[in-house]
């Protein structure tokens, strides 16, 4: 399946982009509304970009009452990205979600203060709160991501989303101060790809969980690389900003990729055709 990375697309503003995907993943929903960080919030870097949006979202209540019904009208399978500042925050949101394809637990936003509870504690609390499939979105900043992956697997996760952005900083050459108002932000784009591939490769060996790979995918060859490292599905993020037709373009590119290994070729073919909604 081809998904979007959470926070990189608003399906209500750009439904024609979302419809190119197999699944739409929402921006992270927190219990209370969040305005997000002060601008400037983005900066371009060498072959990447930084963002410090800060989980801007309408909050759980308004999301359920207003946004979710409109998202359902798109007719796309939905994954809801859930965030919070304690295991209880996450679990309470999971408990009120129903009739969606899956929940992605954002355990790794670099632009807000991290939840005090560990990734495994959060997954365990959510597992008790819902029967829906739970994907744990992990950061590659952990020194031992395999241990974290095994811990969330033991806690009841159904899959892994790898990876989130990594914390970075860009300096304004005129002021010699950080470009972003928050100082640091999350690094994304092609510059992140080798880090993401390593995380996917490591976690695929360490767990039995299906993996959504993401981080710098811009073309079919990138998809091939992620699948080769053990991802079952892939998500597009930063590439969508510059090319809203990227999902369609990448499917077209994939349909003509030739691989010698027939097993690998079979797995790739699933990406070239959009699943009927």
């Amino acid at each position: 399946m081809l998904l979007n990375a959470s926070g990189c697309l608003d399906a209500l503003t750009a439904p024609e982009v979302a419809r190119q995907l197999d699944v739409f993943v929402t921006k992270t929903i927190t219990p209370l509304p969040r305005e997000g960080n002060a601008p400037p919030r983005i900066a371009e870097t060498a072959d990447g970009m930084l963002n410090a949006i800060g989980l801007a979202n309408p909050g759980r209540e308004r999301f359920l009452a207003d946004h979710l019904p409109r998202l359902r009208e798109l007719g796309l399978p939905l994954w809801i990205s859930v965030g919070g500042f304690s295991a209880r925050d996450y679990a309470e949101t999971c408990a009120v979600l129903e009739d969606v394809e899956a929940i992605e637990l954002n355990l790794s936003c670099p632009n807000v203060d991290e939840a005090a509870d560990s990734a495994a504690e959060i997954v365990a609390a959510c597992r008790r709160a819902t029967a829906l499939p739970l994907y744990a979105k992990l950061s590659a900043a952990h020194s031992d991501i395999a241990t974290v992956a095994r811990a969330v697997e033991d806690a009841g996760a159904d899959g892994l989303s790898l990876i989130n952005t990594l914390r970075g900083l860009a300096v304004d050459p005129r002021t010699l101060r950080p470009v972003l108002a928050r100082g640091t932000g999350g690094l994304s784009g092609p510059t992140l790809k080798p880090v993401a591939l390593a995380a996917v490769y490591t976690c695929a060996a360490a767990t039995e969980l299906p993996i959504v790979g993401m981080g710098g995918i811009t073309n079919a060859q990138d998809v091939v690389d992620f699948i080769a490292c053990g991802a079952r599905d892939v998500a597009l993020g930063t590439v969508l900003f510059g090319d809203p037709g990227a999902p369609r373009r990448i499917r077209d590119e994939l349909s003509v990729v030739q691989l010698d290994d027939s097993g690998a070729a079979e797995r790739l073919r699933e990406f070239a055709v959009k699943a009927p909604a």
Partner: protein
Amino acid sequence: MASRRERLRVLGSEPVALYTLLRLERGGLGPGLPGQFFMLEAPGRLLPRALSLCLAPPGELAFLVDPVGPGTEALCALERGDAIHVFGPLGNGFRLDVARPLLVGGGIGIAPLPYLAELLRFPPAVLGFRSEAHAEAASLLPGAEVVVDPVLVTDSNLRGFDVLACGPEPMLHAIAARCPDAQLAWEAPMACGYGACYGCAVEIDGELKRLCVEGPVLVAA
């Protein structure tokens, strides 16, 4: 949406004062309303750059570019025969149903005014620049009153006019304080231009909102 993304050929690139007027073939893209913007692929850069349309001659889209960083410098370096992806028109432009229009521009903020002037049948305009060298760009808007720093456009008489303005933030704030009905075209760093990245958030009605979706043209009050 009415916007499209296509690869457009460069028809020409000419200096206008210290700026560059980049002329592209129009392809299947509409010019949109003045004040709307386009995302232009900046060769060698990851993210496109948001530029408002400056002129819309038949079959062409022309953009005024100020080379302030690596992306805009790459756009200024384009030559006839090159091609770049262009996505647009995007956002909300100026409302044209105004009785006594006065166009006010500051620096590179004059960019959307030549196209706007054409659709409004060349109303009065006042343009401000930080130097005489920059002020030569006023040639894009024949007949405009031109002031150079330390004289400001807001020293002019704005009362009684329907002000349509684009320029640096202090200028727009000064106009907003005096003309609550003014239509102001704002600027913010944008990664996508179509509401996906949430990078261009600015405070609108006391809330942070996406400028690419709500603007870039907003009513002052």
